[in-house]
């Protein structure tokens, strides 16, 4: 399966950043017509900050603005919902309020400084950004991290997935006024953040990753306790999840909300839980070159419920995965860990990480140990298109279910 993650364009040429069977590839366009192969080519090419910005007119139609600084929109982003009262005729999403030009700001900075900036693009995906950037730079300057570093990065990405998925499901339960479920999920979310802290020293997994290595290795003595905690989270969550699936009041709100077909999802270049909820088996798990790959969870319906189900099963899988591999982590010890060195001061690199909401790609050019160019491709940007499309023809009540179910963030979409 080939997915177009981004376009690396210069005035002279244009290269396609593709994920091909789980491996990132850069391909020159060379006069071909990529728009015929990749439905999302024009989206990525134009890279508009106002998504789906075509006004809708008609008697009684008006533009309902939600944001950029409004209760309910937790980031600086703005929705323009064209409506004649209740039905959403079109949803235009303006991500420009969060535009920070971080990729440009990284230029001429050292890779270490740029890594810190990458980690702060979107705190929910801090580790994914950090690892994707690190991998790209490591490729550019020819650094080979140890197995221990690679394995820990993989595990920490799963920790990030667990707390992100818990957060999304918590938001869905809150939107559906499932107070008890939401309170339990909120407690589990807090527990996941505490486990992050015990593993990495940071609730949002910041400052643990570095170029070619980890800043510190989690203490082996606590590993068993942490592994047990993850199993407890899986158990408690499974119980809650099964219980929630019996609540039709909850399910009815998610069912048929923001439905996307597999063709639509692929056309938008979606990856991660959103694509898998449409029944498409993607290769994102293959971006991990080590440890045993996780099973790919899919659903067929493509609606908010299906996306929730995918995330729910992934939480349980990731918890067990973490528990199993944390227990085996003492065998990864590598004496060469501290001797990681770069072999080149110049180079080009690119990498893709399986972030909680889909493929996150980085393309970097390093020159004389300075960042020459950085291109960042996040799952939230096409995700915003999916939100816009999913909201069309629904009513206002459906808004939170659709938006939350995609697990996207303005900070991640607007770099």
């Amino acid at each position, binding site marked *: 399966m080939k997915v177009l993650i981004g376009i690396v364009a210069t005035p002279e040429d244009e290269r396609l950043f593709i994920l091909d069977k789980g491996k990132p590839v850069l391909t020159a366009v060379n006069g071909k017509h990529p728009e015929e192969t990749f439905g999302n080519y024009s989206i990525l090419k134009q890279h508009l900050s106002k998504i789906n910005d075509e006004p809708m007119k008609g*008697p*009684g139609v008006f533009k309902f603005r939600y944001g950029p*600084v409004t209760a309910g929109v937790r980031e600086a982003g703005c929705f323009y919902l064209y*409506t*004649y009262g*209740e039905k959403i005729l079109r949803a235009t999403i303006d991500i420009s309020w969060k535009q920070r030009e971080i990729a440009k700001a990284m230029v001429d900075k050292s890779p270490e400084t740029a890594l810190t900036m990458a980690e702060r693009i979107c705190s929910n995906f801090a580790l994914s950004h950090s690892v994707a950037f690190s991998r790209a730079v490591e490729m550019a300057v020819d650094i080979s991290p140890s197995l221990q570093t690679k394995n820990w990065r993989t595990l920490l990405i799963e920790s990030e997935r667990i707390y992100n998925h818990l957060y999304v499901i918590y938001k869905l339960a809150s939107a559906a006024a499932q107070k008890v479920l939401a309170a339990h999920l909120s407690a589990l979310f807090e527990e996941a953040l505490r486990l992050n802290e015990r593993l990495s020293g940071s609730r949002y997994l910041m400052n643990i990753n570095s170029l070619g290595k980890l800043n510190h290795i989690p203490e082996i003595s606590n590993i068993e306790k942490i592994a047990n905690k993850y199993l407890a989270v899986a158990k408690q969550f499974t119980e809650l999840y099964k219980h929630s699936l019996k609540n039709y009041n909850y399910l009815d709100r998610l069912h048929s909300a923001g439905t996307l077909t597999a063709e639509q999802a692929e056309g938008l270049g979606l990856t991660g839980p959103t694509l898998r909820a449409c029944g498409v088996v993607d290769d994102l798990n293959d971006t991990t070159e080590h440890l045993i790959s996780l099973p790919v969870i899919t659903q067929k319906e493509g609606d908010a419920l299906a996306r929730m189900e995918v995330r729910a099963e992934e939480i349980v899988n990731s918890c067990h995965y973490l528990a199993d591999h944390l227990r085996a982590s003492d065998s990864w010890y590598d004496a060469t860990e501290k001797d990681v060195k770069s072999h080149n001061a110049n180079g080009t690199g690119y990498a893709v990480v399986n972030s909680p909401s889909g493929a996150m790609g980085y393309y970097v050019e390093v020159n004389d140990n300075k960042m020459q160019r950085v291109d960042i491709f996040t799952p939230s940007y096409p995700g915003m298109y999916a939100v816009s499309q999913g909201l069309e023809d629904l009513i206002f009540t459906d808004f939170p279910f659709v938006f939350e179910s995609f697990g996207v963030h303005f900070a991640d979409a607007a770099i």
Partner: protein
Amino acid sequence: MKILFIIALLFYIAGAVSSPKTQLSYIFGFLGSVSAFLSACFALTRSQILWNFPLLHNVSLSLYMDHLSAIFIIIATISWMALALYSVDYSKLYPKKRLPLGFNLSLLGMLLVLTAHDGITLLAGWEIMTIFAFLMMQGTGKYFEHSYRFLAFGELSTISLVIGFAALYVTAGSISFDALHKGSYFVLILISLGFIIKMDIVPFHAWMQGIYGEIPDNTAALLSAPVTLMGVYGLERVIPLLPNNQLWDIIIILLGAFSAFWGGLQAAVVNKIRLLPAYSTIENNGMILTAIGFYALAEGSGILSLHYLASFALAASIILVISHTFSKTLLFMSIGHAKEAYNVHTIDQARGVWSGVGRIPAIGIVISALSFSAFPPLIGYAGEWMILETLFQSYRFPSVAIAFSAALAGILIALAIGLISFAMIKLIGYTALGYDHGRKSRPIARRFMHTAEISLGSLLVLGGIGLPLVIIFIGFPQLLTGLLAIPAPLVLASNQPVFGVISPTFIGIIMLVLLIIPVWIFMKNKKKTRKVESWNGGIKLEEDEFFTAPAYSQILEHILRGFYHTREKKSKTRSSITVEDILIRPTVFISNMVMKTGKIVASTLMNGKISAYVAYILILFITVFIIGMVVK
């Protein structure tokens, strides 16, 4: 009394004659209404035959003013006076002489209806009223194909009355109202149907769409309030006199309740500023019809214990009549004032009357709309409480069928009241008190308009607070009592022993003490306040970001799409929702058929060919000859 009545007629004729001088003509109309009002005041205590002319054996043309006529003349003339005053200023916008001519003669026709004591005089007044109201509809100088539908329904009503009175003559040998008790059920149905059609009861409302948006404002007010009032008067006049038929009473109750529901349903979604009060008329007249039907049912049952309930139902119908006539006249005048000042046609376009046009028309809209929304202590509150209270007591009837029908009517009317409140809030929220978007109105003469608006607004408030006086005025002092700390006669009781009570007077006093006085003290002592724009996400709202009036109703259009026949059209850049009053379909179908037939006849027989024309004459001659032979 007689002299005042004759003076009133003379003033109306003078008004018609002086129609080229429009303002003078309306002043004559006003003076005529004052005279008619005064004559009715005298008739409250003493009934009098005004005129009697023997036409044939057993057939006399007579004018008579009794207590019922007097009540209705007083109600109608208050509306006419306000409309005449309003029209003095309004005539500067529409100076065509046919408008005051139609206005004066239409009032004359209505006065004849209200005093007629026989079928022929009634029909004469009825036709004068209908034809000159039709003439007024042409007052803007535009041609309206739809206005002929009004005429068609008007004539349908006349035909029904003509056949009804002819049948009365056949059975009773007279067309005097005194002979109505000898009439058959056939007479009952036809005559009451004639009046029901005039009340715009569903499905006889089908002429309204396409007309109310185009006709002059004073004409719209006249058609909606005083003209429909004639239908109500007719029913109130003949129903107690004609023989009672329970089935017909039940039909009337259910037809009225359904009409109220349908009127409320349509009013909730219309966007044309004058169509909303027009549908509200259907709703109100539906409630009045139900009250009259309930009265007939209770009184005709012969059960003594239901006599109080019958009186209460009849009083309810008259209170609703007063509320509707005053509120609707005020609403049309205030809306018309705003509409003309802005020169717009929809609720959305006429936003912000308070700041954009003036406070008096805005208050006029608010008071009348609140009255229709049954807001205490306004008189509309009393009327709507009374009709619901009447229907609540359907269990008092021994027949399950009657109790069930009345309960069903109660459900429909309760829904209607909710829907009409929903509609009226739209008028208050958008038109009266909404944001004016910086729009400024054009300067129009408004001194007389303001006088008319203030007078009717005050009457609506005083009529509610002074409800006991109104109840005594309409002749039902037995419905008043005292309860606990509230002294007699401030409490209106729906039955004895007490079933349900209200006291708008007491509510008014409480509101005055608990609300107005503290607000007044607060306003007087208020400190310097700082006003800021409301927070809208951090960005100023653009013009296309304001919540529209159609959006307010869209949820109803969606949920009740079966009733509204909601259809959505959507393209890539354009989207729209259409709703339809499906009960006007039969009328549209008949109208289209008539037009098609007319075209075919015109093209085949009246196409300028002599041979075709001769054939047409011959066919007609032979047909008439054969019919004549058969009848003979």
